[in-house]
């Protein structure tokens, strides 16, 4: 298993445990129905590789968690407990330190659309740092 796959599996497990009542998916490309909300879609981003030492690479792997919320008043406010729970799960994970050397909370981007009320989508990006021999992933 590649490191990126191990990270993504760990993220999904952490999210499932931390976010009660939230449907957690990985790399889903089909539409979430209203009955499936709130939902979290974990998607891999770029895995940037830098040469660290001879035959040793430093990886910076971005993972974005897309949080979809049901339309409601102040839907961005409703996202806050989920964001905090996810962050605490990542920060206190016993699994991730065995896979990566560091995790950075990178960004949060809010998006809004007019639907049956105010719908919001929150993109939360984490960056995972790890070293790997250049002949492995």
């Amino acid at each position, binding site marked *: 298993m590649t490191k990126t796959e191990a990270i993504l599996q760990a993220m999904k497990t952490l999210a499932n445990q931390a976010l009660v009542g939230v449907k957690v998916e990985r790399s889903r490309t089909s539409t*979430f129905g209203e009955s499936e909300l709130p939902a979290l879609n974990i998607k891999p981003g770029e895995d940037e590789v830098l040469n660290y030492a001879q035959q040793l690479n430093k990886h910076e792997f971005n993972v974005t968690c897309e949080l979809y919320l049901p339309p409601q008043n102040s839907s961005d406010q409703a996202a806050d407990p989920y964001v905090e729970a996810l962050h605490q799960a990542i920060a206190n994970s016993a699994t991730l330190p065995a896979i990566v050397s560091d995790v950075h909370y990178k960004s949060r981007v809010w998006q809004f659309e007019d*639907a049956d009320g105010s719908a919001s989508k929150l993109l939360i990006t984490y960056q995972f740092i790890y070293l790997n021999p250049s002949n492995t992933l």
Partner: protein
Amino acid sequence: MNFDDDLPVFLADFGVTAMALGETHNVIFNKPDAVIFDDMQASADFSMRYLTSEFANLHDGTTIVVEGSTYKVRGEPLKVADGKFSMASLRK
């Protein structure tokens, strides 16, 4: 032929009952689904079409009961075409 006289008849034939601000009128009620966020989330997209001369004081947040279900007006209603009809988006 006076088309304006036909508008209430049209609503009586094809509309449903709506009540708001102490008034009751027939409206055309639409409730299709819509997809948002680059087709990643489905949502209901309630709206109603009504005579502009009726429900003249609808505004954002007005409570309205359509076919027995309660909604709130979402945003300001807008006139359509020649202005005889208006359209109001709704939310549950």
